[in-house]
């Protein structure tokens, strides 16, 4: 999973600590999120998307989606 969090956070002039405070998590969690090493809960993803004023889809990019098949 890739994320545009760092870019969008910079656009909003927010530090990791400020974003962490707004979405009520620790700064380390934001750090791991930006590195793409942590998969957030839906609530946290939603909260971050609201703060950064984007849709969740625009915030997190899932790779290798073409390899997956879903039941219709």
């Amino acid at each position, binding site marked *: 999973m890739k994320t545009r969090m760092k870019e969008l956070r910079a656009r909003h002039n927010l530090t990791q600590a400020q974003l*962490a*405070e707004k979405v*009520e*998590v*620790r700064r*380390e*969690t934001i750090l*791991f999120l930006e*590195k793409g*090493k*942590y*998969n*957030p*809960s839906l609530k*946290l993803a939603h909260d971050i998307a609201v703060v950064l004023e984007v849709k969740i889809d625009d915030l997190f990019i899932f790779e290798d989606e073409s390899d997956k098949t879903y039941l219709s």
Partner: protein
Amino acid sequence: MENDKPSEKDDNQYKASRGLMWIGSAMLLVSSVYLIIWKTFNDTIAITVLIGAMMFIISFFFYIGMERPKDERLIKVGTMSATWSWYITLMFMCFLLFSGFYTPRQFQPAELFGLVIFVMVSTMLVLNTYFNRKGDLEETFHL
């Protein structure tokens, strides 16, 4: 209504609980090694175990993120560490039971206590530190 936003006070509380956890664990590990080697209790060791256990118990839920500040990653990592620690300790106790049953070696109660405390505390700390450094559990367990 309670304000759930983590404050600087909460962050300091988390750091204090982490310190308390490490000191308590160190006391428990040192006393458990003593018990394993010398196989007997004395007043100093009993008090060290008691204080260490109190520190561990008080700071445990703060350390794994279940008390303020509630952080979902800390809870996730801490819960998995506690689960694995419990599981490994149970397996170790079963191993001790079998080894005591099928071999001539007899364990002293103080030695057994030391062994169980050592495995429980060390696995909890090592696993929590390991998972925390990884960032998440997905990479480790391919969830």
